[in-house]
């Protein structure tokens, strides 16, 4: 049931190349995070999400210092190794200081075009709106130049429906996991979500629909199992989910930027695109990288963890991610006050030895089992 998804994540380059050819759409590499891929789709592009990878760093070190996160480094490594030849252009948002400067480096060393959607970080609503409007116009023009196709009202509405459908189906999968912890192995679950980074929407939606159908009559394993909610930027390295599976730990919900924070975003309303994108960015789950005075991230996470019935929360920290590192101490304190047990793991996407992580998770698991 999960093998088609595993095939995709095990053969990313081949998959992308195959669909690039069969769908005749230029591949646009989408940098972390929250770039509305509907715009790429509407312009006739093929959005492929880049959330980092596990390549060992050989070339990116000549541009990025040791204090840059492995997300940025591994994405750059992919390009510098010549493994991202199929990517015709990049789409950035101004998510963090590292990515802002990474775009500048790309601009100097690559001949590939890029578009940047600056994310307004203001409480001034009118300013947010007008700034987004300018940003979206510039992105649309840039994408049209890359693909050679115009973004029309109809193409935008179709793209919004297609991408909205993806997230709706993913949310259904999340709901099944919440309702039946353990029904889907953690490694399988995140493979399904990860496959979506690389597949065209139509094909992915079909696969998700089939999967949801197959899951209908299955039953979750019996007995007491440990339930957790992880929080962090990206749900890699995937080997960690194998450790969870081994230890009978069920992730019942998550707070990953490329997990629920993205999946929770509703269908973009395109009749007023600026308002639609504004809601897409700010009215879903809060993110440590996105200033949003309207939602208190502490309250949000406390409620999320309690609602999920989790036994504890796991801070999944990608080294050198400053936005996440700033939030963590106060957030941990708040969760402790609420009686929610917590633990944390420090990771690099490029790590190959998981002994320390496993020891930590095992210890946490024992505590939660009481």
């Amino acid at each position, binding site marked *: 049931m999960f093998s088609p998804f595993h095939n995709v994540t095990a053969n990313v380059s081949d998959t992308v190349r195959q669909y690039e050819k069969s769908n005749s759409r230029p591949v646009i590499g989408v940098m972390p995070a929250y770039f509305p891929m509907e715009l790429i789709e509407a312009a006739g592009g093929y959005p492929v999400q880049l959330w980092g990878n596990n390549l060992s760093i050989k070339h990116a070190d*000549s*541009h*990025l*210092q*040791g*204090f*840059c996160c492995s997300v940025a480094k591994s994405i750059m490594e992919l390009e510098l190794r010549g493994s991202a030849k199929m990517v015709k252009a990049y789409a950035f948002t*101004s998510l*963090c*200081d*590292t990515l*802002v*400067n*990474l*775009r*500048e*480096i790309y*601009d*100097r*060393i690559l001949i590939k075009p890029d578009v*940047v959607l*600056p994310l*307004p*970080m*203001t*409480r*001034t609503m*009118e*300013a947010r709106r*007008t*700034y987004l409007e*300018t940003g979206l116009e510039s992105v649309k023009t840039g994408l049209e130049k890359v693909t050679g196709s115009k973004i029309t009202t109809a193409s935008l509405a179709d793209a919004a429906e297609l991408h909205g459908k993806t997230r709706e189906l993913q949310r259904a999968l999340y709901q099944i996991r919440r309702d039946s912890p353990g029904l889907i192995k953690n490694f399988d679950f995140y493979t399904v979500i990860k496959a979506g980074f690389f597949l065209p929407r139509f094909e992915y939606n079909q696969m998700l629909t089939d999967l949801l159908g197959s899951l209908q009559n299955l039953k979750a394993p019996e007995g007491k199992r440990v339930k957790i909610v992880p929080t962090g930027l990206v749900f890699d390295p995937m080997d960690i989910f194998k450790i969870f599976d081994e230890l009978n730990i069920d992730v019942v919900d998550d707070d990953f930027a490329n997990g629920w924070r993205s999946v929770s975003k509703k269908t973009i309303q395109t009749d007023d695109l600026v308002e639609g994108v504004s809601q897409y960015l700010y009215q879903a789950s809060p993110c*440590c990288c996105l*200033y949003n*005075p309207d939602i208190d991230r*502490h309250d949000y996470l406390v409620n999320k963890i309690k609602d999920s019935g989790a036994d504890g929360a796991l801070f999944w*920290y990608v*080294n*050198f*991610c*400053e*936005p996440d*590192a*700033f*939030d*963590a*101490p*106060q957030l*941990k*304190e708040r969760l402790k006050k609420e009686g929610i047990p917590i633990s944390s793991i420090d990771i690099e996407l490029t790590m190959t030895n998981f002994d320390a992580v496993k020891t930590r998770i095992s210890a946490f698991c024992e505590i939660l089992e009481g």
Partner: protein
Amino acid sequence: MTHFKAISTMKEIMTNYYVEAKTTKEKPIAWITSGAPVEFLYAMDIIPIYPENHAAMCASAHQAMDVIDVAESAGYSQDICSYARTDFGADLSKGGPIGGLPEPDFLLCSTNICKTVIKWYEVIARRKNVPLFVVDIPFLHEGLTRGLIDYSISQFHDLENFLADFTGRPFDKDRYDEVLSLSDKATIKWTEILGLGKTIPTPINSFDSFIHMAPIVTLRGTQVCVDYYEELYKEVEERAKNKIGSIPDEKYRVLWDNLPIWFKLSRLGKFFAEQKCAITAATYTNSWGGMSAGKWDTEDPYELMAVSYLYNYINLGFEERINYLAELIEMNSLTGFVMHSNRSCKPYSIGMYRLQEEVTKLTGKPGIVIEADQNDGRVYSDAQIETRLEAFFETMDPI
């Protein structure tokens, strides 16, 4: 370090500034980032307090590591900016040279120096339970645009409303104009002082200006700031006229990119002097030196304000950074440049290897990147840095 008589005035005004802030019963206190539009605060009689300035002060006094330890024990990772860790630790322990900062009534931060400040100030806002006002001044990927200026101005107006609500008084436009004029005067004077660095031998080097920049950061918009730089200017001008260099036998002239290494200011100052190398320009001190002048054709005070806060070195795209560095090298007759790859400042540092390569290609002048940190001494090695610098000096042609 060059001895300027004005240093005693600076010590006095900075002491007065902190004493007033620590003892005031009437004036509200706002904690503010170094690149935020402070003029709005002075116009409403609000005392701005700069955690960055305070953190630099802790490091210069060799007290940063003690408070950094406190912050790290409280859970703040070594991965976050060492200024933030210094301030968090000083606040938690009431440590540092002035026993912590006066409590804030609200916070004002601007993103033109980094996005990190939002996270930093969110932590403070939560800890102190005070309002946070963010003025988003976006990065200039493609230079100045009308959209960016309008976006900034729109937030300035919102800030005026916020301040009026906060103080219970209408925003004082007349006072604001006066403050703006004082801010301009101080900026012009500071720019003129830095401009005298062009003189051969340089009468003021960047180790000096790192120290003397405190008032332009903290007191910009006040008469005392204007008076101070007028006093300092006279001294520097006199030295320039008489060709008195900041170091004996100036042989090399270089630029410093990024923040200083505060806890090594004295040792590095001595080391550079021994090597007969004067740091005659620094992008950091220039960031308060009217970089935006002539960049946008307008006389509208709000537009000028927006442009001055947008067009700040660290907020510029690489094309403009490279051209600016090349211009400084040319203008100051430099023999090379030193880039501080600062673990605590990603926007200043990431991409630096590429910048070094391009600036050398453009100017023909050698450059070096040294790996360090503005406040965290654990990532600094005297032997390693000095050996690398010595090797670099050998690659330069003397003036």
